[in-house]
């Protein structure tokens, strides 16, 4: 594998969807319209926690133009089978899409209206009468786990190892990983550092709000246009929530303006389906930015306590990590993944990782880029930094002394296969950023990070055009340049240029089942299906050439996009190129098409090391990022520009999380900053050009050695920025965001 000489993989062709996107022609979720289409509006809860005593939707129907109105009672009663899955089960999902008996956060959907105009729909929604019995909000971890806490779910019993509460609680699950003897480990340590960290709820901040158009036919068939990371997930989840047979639903994904995990679930689709069924007309629902902030996908607020011990020689010995993650209204925070990532970069003989999934009356969390890992790394990587400081060791040196490598045992059990963590540390140490001169009030931070790549199910089909070009279809919406990467893989196998391959995103009826674009899995898993299908095409091309030449299959080899004679057969013939073979498809057996499906294991983990230089204004507390460098093991970068783009994008999101982003709730649980003006994501001018170094340690599970790259880059930045600010100020920042008021208060000793 490592000897393979790639011709297309590693090149940087122009993305196939680029022209439509830069000229504004590409269609996103809100761009679809149908004749006779109604506009919908959603009525949302004004309370963070309340019982719905009654809903009277009839006044809405009296508003001119209103054609349909629905509430939670119009959906099948969600039933729970078994316990709640880690990522939330269908009843929780259904109750999040529209509240039935109880609202669990401010902005929770309680009813929806479809009308001939958006104004009529909004007027209709305002007329709906809802009687609430208001309950106390539960707005942080402390109050959620307090003995007298208001309980969100009467049927919520904590899962996980003892001791856990046995009566209904707001703690949904405990995850515990341990090894060695933690007390002995600390006793054997020369240095022990212990700190507690907090991070606020933050949003993915995708630029495109959720949007859907739904058409229903008299025969019950439903077509859904929407922006999503997973059209098959939308189909399956919508079927479960609405009770409609899955085979009657077709989901057509639009182009997608960002998702970062937040578009792996559903919000609007079942509402639009039900409104369309009742009105007999197509219905469009588009969220405002405010609705996106109030009712969709943040990631958890977290509280992480880290205690770490090391010997004088720099060897890390013991670590104890206790993590509480807020799940929002329904169980399913990514604390389990946080537990698995927290200590996975280093070898500890003695460790305890103890994680709690806590429900609060806030929006239900959704996946966000390496869910759970950045919060854990914010604590662990700062404590590692402090251990290095206490021992007088260079922070990269300390990490190299303890970095995991192939055959080391991960804290969650199995051994690592080939991984490139040490390589990222060594590249970071060599990078000019690491030796750049720092001025007054400037500081440098280092942090590393770890994340998995999902495997899951993927399929791909490849077919040849009669001019020798190819089309590849998958069920993965293109969220990060996957079309270009997919075309490169087909081109590599066929021996043609990437521009001679058309990559298509299919819908749920034109593509084979494929799990969502997420979990850093698309280039890895769907890529495997594409490579396999392309290899099948090559085999068929050789068969056709063999037929033309009148030789056996083994008399034809495939080189540089041409069939050439081999094994001494037909040595007098001219090689046949793709176009020449394709032109004779009819005479040699008909169209050339292939498909492949895979369900691979999770890919080898991806590691990254980041460097950050900051300057801190000592009088205002404002932090300016001067330099930022990301180093990451990509296994094999198929289209390096998109790998670098993922590394830069993840770093940018992580820097925002570190410095300014946070949900600000008032005492009633109302988000006070539901817009980009006051939810302060970084703008382009806030960031330096983020440098990228791609390390390639081949993933043994993939034919090219590919690892997913999309998520790992958001893991190190929170701690990396915090370590840099600590170096610049001499103060340790344990609470995010590291915003100017917080920095100034620390500098002034307030």
């Amino acid at each position, binding site marked *: 594998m490592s000897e393979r000489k790639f011709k297309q993989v590693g090149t940087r062709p122009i993305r196939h969807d680029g022209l439509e996107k830069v000229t504004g022609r590409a269609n996103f979720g809100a761009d679809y319209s149908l004749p006779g289409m109604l506009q919908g509006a959603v009525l949302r809860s004004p309370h963070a926690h309340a019982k719905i005593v009654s809903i009277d939707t009839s006044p809405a129907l009296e508003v001119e133009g209103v054609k349909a109105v629905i509430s939670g009672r119009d959906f099948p009663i969600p039933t729970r089978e078994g316990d709640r899955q880690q990522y939330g089960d269908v009843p929780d999902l259904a109750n999040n899409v529209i509240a039935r008996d109880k609202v669990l956060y401010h902005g929770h959907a309680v009813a929806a209206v479809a009308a001939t105009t958006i104004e009529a729909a909004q007027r209709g929604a305002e007329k709906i009468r809802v009687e609430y019995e208001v309950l106390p909000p539960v707005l942080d971890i402390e109050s959620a786990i307090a003995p007298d806490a208001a309980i969100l779910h009467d049927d919520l019993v904590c899962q996980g190892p003892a001791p856990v509460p046995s009566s209904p609680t707001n703690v949904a699950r405990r995850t515990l990983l341990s090894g060695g003897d933690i007390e002995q480990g600390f006793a054997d340590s020369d240095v022990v550092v212990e700190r507690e960290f907090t991070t606020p709820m933050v949003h993915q901040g995708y630029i495109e709000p959720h949007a859907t158009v739904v058409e229903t036919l008299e025969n019950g068939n439903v077509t859904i246009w929407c922006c999503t990371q997973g059209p098959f997930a939308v189909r399956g989840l919508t079927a479960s929530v609405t009770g409609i047979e899955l085979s009657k639903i077709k989901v057509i994904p639009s182009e997608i303006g960002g998702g970062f995990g*937040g578009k792996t679930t559903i919000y609007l689709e079942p509402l639009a389906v039900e409104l369309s069924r009742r009105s007999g007309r197509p219905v469009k629902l588009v969220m405002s930015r405010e609705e996106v902030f109030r009712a969709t996908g943040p990631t958890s607020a977290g509280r992480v306590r880290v205690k770490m011990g090391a010997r004088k020689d720099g060897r890390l010995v013991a670590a104890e990590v206790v993590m509480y993650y807020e799940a929002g209204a329904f169980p399913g925070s990514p604390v389990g993944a946080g537990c698995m990532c927290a200590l996975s970069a280093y070898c500890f003989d003695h460790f305890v990782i103890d994680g709690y999934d806590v429900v609060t009356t806030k929006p239900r969390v959704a996946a966000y880029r390496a869910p759970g890992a950045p919060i854990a790394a914010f604590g662990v990587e700062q404590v590692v930094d402090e251990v290095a400081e206490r021992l007088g060791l260079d922070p990269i040196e300390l990490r190299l002394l303890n970095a995991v490598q192939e055959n080391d045992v991960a804290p969650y059990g*199995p051994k690592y296969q080939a991984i490139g963590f040490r390589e990222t540390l060594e590249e970071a140490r060599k990078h000019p950023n690491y030796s750049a001169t720092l001025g007054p009030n400037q500081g440098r931070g280092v942090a590393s990070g770890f994340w998995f790549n999902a495997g899951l199910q993927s399929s791909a089909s490849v077919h040849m055009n009669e001019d020798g070009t190819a089309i590849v279809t998958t069920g993965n919406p293109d969220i990060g340049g996957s079309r270009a990467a997919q075309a490169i893989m087909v081109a590599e196998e066929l021996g043609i240029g990437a521009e001679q391959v058309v990559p298509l995103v299919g819908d749920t009826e034109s593509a084979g089942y494929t799990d969502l674009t997420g979990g850093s899995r698309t280039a890895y898993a769907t890529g495997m299906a594409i490579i396999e299908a392309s290899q099948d095409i090559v085999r068929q091309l050789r068969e056709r050439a063999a037929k033309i030449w009148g030789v056996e299959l083994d008399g034809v080899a495939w080189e540089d996009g041409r069939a050439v004679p081999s094994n001494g057969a037909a040595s007098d013939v001219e090689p046949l190129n793709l176009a020449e073979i394709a032109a004779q498809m009819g005479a040699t057996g008909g169209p050339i098409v292939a498909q492949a499906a895979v*369900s691979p294991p999770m890919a080898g983990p991806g590691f990254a090391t980041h460097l950050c230089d900051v300057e801190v204004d000592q009088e205002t507390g404002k932090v300016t990022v001067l330099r930022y460098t990301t180093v990451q093991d990509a296994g094999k970068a198929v289209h390096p520009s998109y790998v670098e783009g993922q590394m830069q994008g993840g770093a940018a999101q992580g820097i925002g999380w570190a410095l300014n982003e946070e949900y600000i709730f008032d005492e009633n649980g109302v988000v006070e900053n539901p817009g980009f003006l006051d939810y302060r994501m970084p703008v382009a001018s806030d960031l330096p050009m983020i440098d990228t170094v791609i390390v390639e340690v081949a993933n043994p599970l993939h034919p090219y050695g590919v690892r997913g790259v999309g998520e790992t880059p958001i893991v190190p930045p929170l701690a990396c920025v915090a370590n840099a600010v600590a170096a610049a100020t001499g103060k340790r920042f344990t609470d995010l965001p590291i915003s100017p008021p917080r920095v100034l208060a620390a500098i002034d000793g307030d």
Partner: protein
Amino acid sequence: MAVVVFSSALAQHTGGAGRVEIEAARVADLVKALCERYPGLRGHIDKMAVAVDDEVHSDARFVRLKPDSEVHFLPRIGGG
């Protein structure tokens, strides 16, 4: 026989046993046998991801086990 290595959390259901040898052809058979031997595991390990010889599967039921396979049960994770 395959070796199953339990986390300390799961070992609460095995009477503290951290390594268990068990005869099974596939992961599904192994889960069934384990749940028979340790009924407390039921409802836990059948919903977890499984690492077989260091390859992690989100749904491992039909993964074949070698005579010397090592098996770990892990929390399922979701990606963004």
